[in-house]
């Protein structure tokens, strides 16, 4: 059982690392802009709670990457160790990244003039929902957001500090027709210069020279994540302006 759990965590770490590295070089998926002036009937948004697989603390470049499968396995193991440690840090600070993102997004959407109803959803995996749960209240459109969060260091050394990172891909789906009214990706602190996603440069005041320094300062580590989530939520709401 323990072996299976460890295998899952290693796979999770490998998937997260691959996702981050892919984001660094990819052009991103298509962006579908929202047509606010044509969708005047969208006043109440059902905000579906996002799925998250937990924090990912990525050291994007390591010596291990030069040594094939063995190096990759060692890297995945080290990433898993960092992820587990950071999960403990979040628990010690009573911080739930999903809840914080939902609260930020709710406030930002309300500021844009929408009524927002948070709809808890059980998600089997990190995909958009195939259908949306009902509500007692009338929902004009559903905002379905996926998210990943954590910290990224581009490489080793003090010139490559750990900075908070947040990624969300979201879509707005018409409550009646199920037409996709908007779909886009927002990333705080992206690696590289991806073209087809909204990017937000990190706040240079929120960084840690290495992982141990970050772990030694839980409030500051959480504050960095909060900034990443708040800025990303603001950008996502801006797409629905």
């Amino acid at each position: 059982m323990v072996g299976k759990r460890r295998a899952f965590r290693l796979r999770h770490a490998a998937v997260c690392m691959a996702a981050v590295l892919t984001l660094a070089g990819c052009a991103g998926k298509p962006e579908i802009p929202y047509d606010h002036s044509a969708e005047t009937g969208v006043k109440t948004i059902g905000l579906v709670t996002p799925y998250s697989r937990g924090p990912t603390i990525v050291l994007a470049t390591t010596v291990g990457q030069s040594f094939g499968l063995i190096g990759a396995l060692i890297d995945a193991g080290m990433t898993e160790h960092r992820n587990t440690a950071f999960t403990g840090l979040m628990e010690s600070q009573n911080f739930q990244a999903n809840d914080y993102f939902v609260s930020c997004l709710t406030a930002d959407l309300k500021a844009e003039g929408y009524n927002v109803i948070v709809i808890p959803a059980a998600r089997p995996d990190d995909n958009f929902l195939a259908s949306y749960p009902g509500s007692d209240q009338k929902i004009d459109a559903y905002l379905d957001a996926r998210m990943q969060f954590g910290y990224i260091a581009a490489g080793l050394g003090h010139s490559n500090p750990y900075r908070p990172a947040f990624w969300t891909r979201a879509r707005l789906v018409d409550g009646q027709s199920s037409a996709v009214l908007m779909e886009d990706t927002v990333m705080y602190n992206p690696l590289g210069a991806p073209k087809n996603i909204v990017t937000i440069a990190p706040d240079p005041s929120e960084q840690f020279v290495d992982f141990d320094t970050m772990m030694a300062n839980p409030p500051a580590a959480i504050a960095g994540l909060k900034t990443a989530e708040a800025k990303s939520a603001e950008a996502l709401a801006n797409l629905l302006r």
Partner: protein
Amino acid sequence: MRNPERLFAALTIVVLVSGCGAQGPAPIVSLADRACTPAPSLLGVQTLLLGDNNKMDVAVDASAPCIQAPDGSRSAYVAMALPATSVPYVLSVRSTILGQTVFAPRMELLDGDGHVVRDMPRSAFMFHGASLYAAVRSHADERFLVVFSDAGTVGQTKSQVHEEINQQTFTSVTPTAVVSVNVNTGNDHTVAFTYADNGRLTIAATPLPAAE
């Protein structure tokens, strides 16, 4: 002793990250010496064509036309006619950072009589890597696009931290084998730029993409 040249006959370095240290024009932050008109001219403007391969790259420089608003503020602009098609499309405007300069965009969509039907303020343009970008879905009544420099933003400076991965491939050729090793290194750098009345715009009208 073997000749080192036989052991290390080739060394190939591939740096995947490009654009570092790119040069660009000096930012233009004042149009005081230009002759501006009260409204943009739509006479003889180019027509944007629909399709992924019909993007228009426009260099906005010191020769660009400008308008002067009633409050005295001035803006350079680029105007073009929109595709004559009934097919819905996405109209996108991208302003790329050139060295230390980026055109500070806002845009208006006009009907056939030149009346403003829709506008997108500067805040609608969000960073997409090394460029500012905004997109809208087409409306049948819109015939012209005008992209202005945003007078309220021009002159402001901004700096951003960028994180990158460089990949270098070292190849050694020996008498019996060729050995290649990829070495990835991380790199942080800060880019500073000024919002300006000049820069480069890429404007496109592309079919509405399918949802994921």
